[in-house]
């Protein structure tokens, strides 16, 4: 479904991604493990078109998207729930969600059913729907960010560290929901620093260090790997 081939990326003069090749197949839930600054966010921003790769190709369902604009990529079926959430703090929860469906506003039926679905996944958002997004708690904001990304009806959902800064109980709840979203047919590509929880819901995973893929394998393989245990599970 998604394939990156020998992708290089720079921010300013710094090369942040150095020859990454990876693939995500339809229906999978793939985890990208990496420490702070390893290049996870840059990788996701590159897939989303916010950053243009300096070399290499990215294809989605057979089409080259390496040069496409972010709005074109959303229309093709890739949504990113970014690090830092990037919500619209002074718009209501409902308006944030409606903006999530910006690219497919013409199909009111679809938008209404997407809204029902995200309220079913995150009932708290329905309760808070008239509140400004900026007034929500951290966990609720993360739920809103995921819900907003889902409103576009993506085939591939990119989640950049959805557990960052949240209480363990909330993290469990969000991870369960991510697994649920995947079961409903959305392919998920997830980045995390903490491997345990993420690998437990994943099919496969990659480990990224200094902008390079250093390890890949099935979720069980990675969870059993000593290096991974030491660096990303903390057991």
């Amino acid at each position: 479904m998604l394939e990156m081939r020998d992708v290089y990326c720079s921010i300013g003069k710094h090369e942040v991604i150095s020859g990454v090749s990876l693939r995500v197949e339809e229906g999978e839930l793939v985890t990208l493990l990496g420490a702070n600054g390893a290049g996870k966010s840059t990788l996701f921003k590159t897939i989303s078109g916010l950053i243009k790769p300096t070399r290499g190709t990215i294809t989605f369902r057979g089409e080259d998207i390496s040069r496409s604009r972010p709005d074109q990529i959303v229309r093709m079926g890739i949504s990113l729930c970014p690090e830092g959430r990037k919500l619209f703090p002074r718009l209501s929860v409902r308006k944030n969600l409606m903006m999530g469906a910006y690219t497919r506003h013409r199909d009111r039926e679809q938008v209404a059913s997407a809204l029902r679905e995200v309220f079913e996944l995150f009932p708290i958002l329905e309760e808070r729907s008239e509140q400004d997004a900026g007034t929500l708690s951290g966990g609720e904001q993360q739920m809103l960010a995921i819900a907003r990304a889902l409103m576009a009806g993506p085939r591939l959902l990119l989640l950049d560290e959805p557990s960052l800064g949240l209480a363990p109980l909330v993290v469990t709840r969000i991870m369960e929901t991510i697994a649920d979203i995947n079961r409903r047919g959305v392919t998920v590509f997830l980045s995390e620093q903490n491997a345990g929880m993420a690998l437990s819901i994943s099919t496969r995973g990659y480990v990224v260090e200094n902008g390079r893929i250093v390890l890949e394998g099935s979720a069980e393989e990675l969870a059993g790997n000593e290096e991974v245990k030491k660096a990303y599970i903390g057991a």
Partner: protein
Amino acid sequence: MTFFINQLIIGIQLGSQYVMVALGLTLIFGILDISHFAHGHMYMLGAYLLYILMELAGVNYWLALPLCMVALALGGVVVERLVYRPLRDQPHINTFIAAIGLILFLETMVRAIQPKALSVSKPIDKVFSAGGVSMEAQRLIVIVGAALLVIALHLFIKRTRLGTAIEAVAQDREGAALVGINVNRISLLTFAIATALAAAAAVLMAPLAFIAPEMGSVLILKAFVIVVLGGLGSMQGAIVGGYLLGILEAMAIAYLSSTYKDVFAFAVLILILAVRPTGLFRGRE
């Protein structure tokens, strides 16, 4: 008392003009993070276009109003595309220099073509009076026209998908791109709306004042004061701030001195920056 009411009406009318110009300035600031100092000169172009349409082409005032708005909306699009877009990721000072360049270009160009001040005739040349309070019809047209446009803009921003997209881009540009909003297109749309509003202000005000190449200069400085007073990027702030400054000026002219009327606006700016630099309303964080 009637004197006071007369001055209040003049204040509201002055404020109406300020609100229309300041709203555009604050919208553009919200979206692009730039102070579009040439906005007052787009206003000036609107007044000249009105003169050309009415006095040279014989177009009716009420038809000239929408024509000027559409023409200047396109002008705003051209300015965004040619002047500001290429400087998007450059240091702020470059944008500032570009704005000054645009001001000099527009003002010199107009002065070269027509150095003398011009005027247009009033569409309704009447004075209403009731109980000692008298009001020129044109002042009423400015007040009502501005109010209608401000309400229309408010409804557009709050109730439509494109309007919400403008707010979304202002609040988080990257987040907006990630939900599939074409941020460049929204920025063009914002310039179009803001410049059309400036044109409307010019058309409404023109029958009450002279049309001159430098007419935008003081106005844009006052609009800037209003935007700071109201809170950068806040529409609500621009509306309240605009009417406040208009009324303040009218009262200052009446009860203090008309010679120093422009001084008050800048005294307000200095005071606000010293006492409450974030402005009256919360704009962007």
